[in-house]
């Protein structure tokens, strides 16, 4: 298994020792629906961490410059900017509400002093510019300090305005609004490696946009059947290849992944590669299809592998091998015997995301009871950790958790029936270069750091 090495991460084989760093969000037991975090994303440098919530807000945290005096602690993340990205809308044609929930945030690579990100709800994608202002001009000729226009007849002399320092102000402004291109709910956006285009995917279609052009998008994948009654499969996630700007993948509700090459035709309905693992006939049940539905797909940083998340497992695929994944990691196999209950309470439809670390040597995904799982691909070791307020002392090390499946429950283990299925960790993010992770637990954002560094 070749994981690209380097990049400041500890070499594979060292045990990570994850410690609590920070938690953001209200402590209240009563969670306001609007505060539930719906997406988490580091930017390319890892200095900025963005979250989106169900209320349509985006909160960006910035990492403090490291204090040279305290070498053992790393920079903390503090609020940098907060803005309302999307508002609730009403579709009058269909008499249906359009939720303002932020489904995804994707950062653009930084090209100047300002930062740009794309945020999307079910229907509309917006490009936001986040810029700093720490100077103010004073001494205008045509207006006075209050901003009121001066009477032109009273201006007797000209002066050059001077720039004076002011308190840092971070402004977020919407630069582009990409609307009216999706009939169905947008589940993914992905910035292309050319840094000029991006894709947006809904349940049945994938559109290609140019970042500068808002009134036009190109449809590159369309799986809508002529007769909607024949619909049996939807698109669940899509992503551009990190290096090859003509390659994208999309996953489906039937557990398949299609890799498309945009050079082959304008409409990528025919895939270049088709990834599907043959079903194990001995474990077939009425729930087999539902649990095979892929909730997230992510390319590795190297671009050689991709990872998919279905309900019970995470799979790593080699792009050169379509027949089966090269790795399968069980996230919470103990839930397999509870599928009917999970179907009844709808938990079986929860969409968990997954992420790679910077060197592609480890992967992480969430589970229930505020547990999240990490798999080290080199050592083949995995660990279950918990994001909870109880383990929130500064730099406190997280203790591995274990779920007991039957029989005697050991001390410190938790039985499957005691798991809290309302506490689900759907969104996690890994710093692109360092051993810092962000874990969204309902309305709280936990930041953990590895102790070694």
């Amino acid at each position, binding site marked *: 298994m070749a994981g690209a090495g380097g990049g400041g991460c500890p070499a594979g084989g060292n045990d990570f020792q994850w410690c609590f760093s920070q938690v953001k969000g209200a402590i209240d037991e009563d969670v306001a629906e609007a505060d539930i975090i719906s997406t988490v994303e580091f930017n390319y440098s890892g200095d900025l961490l963005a979250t989106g919530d169900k209320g349509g807000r985006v909160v960006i945290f910035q990492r403090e410059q490291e204090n040279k005096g305290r070498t053992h602690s790393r920079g903390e993340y503090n609020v940098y900017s907060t803005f309302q990205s999307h508002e609730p809308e009403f579709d009058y*044609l269909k008499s249906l509400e359009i*939720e303002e929930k932020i489904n995804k945030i994707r950062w653009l690579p930084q090209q100047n002093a300002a930062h740009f990100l794309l945020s999307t709800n079910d229907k509309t994608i917006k490009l936001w510019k986040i810029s700093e202002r720490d100077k103010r001009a004073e001494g205008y000729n045509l207006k006075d300090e209050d901003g009121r226009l001066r009477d032109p007849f009273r201006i007797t002399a000209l002066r050059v305005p001077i720039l004076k320092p002011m308190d840092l102000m971070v402004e977020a402004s919407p630069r582009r609004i990409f609307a009216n291109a999706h009939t169905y709910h947008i589940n993914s956006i992905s910035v292309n490696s050319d840094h000029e285009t991006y894709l947006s995917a809904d349940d049945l279609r994938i559109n290609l946009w140019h970042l500068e052009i808002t009134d036009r998008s190109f449809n590159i994948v369309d799986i809508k059947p002529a007769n909607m009654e024949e619909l049996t499969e939807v698109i669940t996630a899509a992503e551009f290849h990190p290096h090859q700007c003509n390659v994208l993948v999309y996953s489906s509700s039937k557990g398949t992944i299609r890799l498309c090459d945009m050079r082959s035709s304008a409409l990528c309905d025919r895939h270049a590669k088709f990834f599907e693992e043959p079903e194990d006939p001995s474990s077939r049940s009425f729930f087999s299809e539902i649990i095979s539905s892929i909730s997230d797909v992510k390319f590795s940083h190297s671009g050689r592998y991709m990872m998919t998340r279905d309900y019970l497992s995470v799979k790593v695929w080699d792009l050169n091998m379509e027949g089966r994944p090269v790795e399968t990691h069980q996230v919470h196999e103990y839930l397999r015997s509870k599928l009917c209950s999970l179907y009844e309470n709808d938990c079986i439809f929860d969409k968990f995301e997954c992420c790679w670390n910077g060197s592609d040597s480890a992967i992480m995904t969430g589970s229930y009871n505020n547990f999240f799982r990490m798999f080290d691909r080199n050592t083949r070791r995995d660990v279950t950790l918990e994001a909870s307020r109880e383990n929130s002392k500064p730099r406190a090390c997280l203790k591995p958790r274990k779920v007991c499946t039957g029989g005697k429950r050991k001390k410190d283990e938790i039985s499957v029936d005691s798991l809290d299925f309302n506490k689900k960790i759907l969104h996690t993010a890994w710093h692109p270069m360092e051993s810092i992770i962000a874990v969204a637990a309902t309305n709280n954002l936990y930041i953990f750091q590895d102790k070694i560094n």
Partner: protein
Amino acid sequence: MFARGLKRKYGDQEEGVEGFGTVPSYSLQRQSLLDMSLVKLQLCHMLVEPNLCRSVLIANTVRQIQEEMSRDGVWHGMAPQNVERAPIDRLVSTEILCRTARAADEEHPTPELEDGPLQSSASELPIVSPAQGQRSPPSSLWELDNPQENRGSFQKSLDQIFETLENKSPSSVEELFSDVDSSYYDLDTVLTGMMGGTKPSLCSGLESFAAAAPPPSSTCKSDLAELDHVVEILVET
């Protein structure tokens, strides 16, 4: 652990061949799963905008169950002459699952179960013909409790569910909403009436779905008994 208010009653009906009152029979479990899925499809239609992925997955589950039930020969069908016109892929048409109020009015109003098939012997159980707007067994049983419900008031066609995501005029969306009445909230009393055992919940029995392969031979026997039971009730009404 996942109690959703499903009341459990002591089952006086047939138990599974596997045991006495401990686990509901496979066909009962499968039936209950079908009922649950149909309810889910209805409920999701009432939301702000239905989650298409979820609807598709539930609909596929319903199709799978129906396919298996028809393979087992327990799918109550129409008169035998319709068999030829009903190839297997029509079975999975969503027409079967749900009917709009409009469609129900156009079609023959009396319960189809009164027609031929129930009088025919078990070996001649025909495949369902969707052209006649066939009912799924659960809805036929619901008819026994609430004859007024056979207008399909709580069952909407899946294509309507999908099409609300397309350009649908407000009036028809409202019409869909207005057809939903609260009587289907009594569903759980109907569902519990079908439950066999008391101690194990619906789902603990159904958990065995994940592992065990169904025993085809044993289901037919218990389903025939169920069939007789249904015939008795209908004949009395």
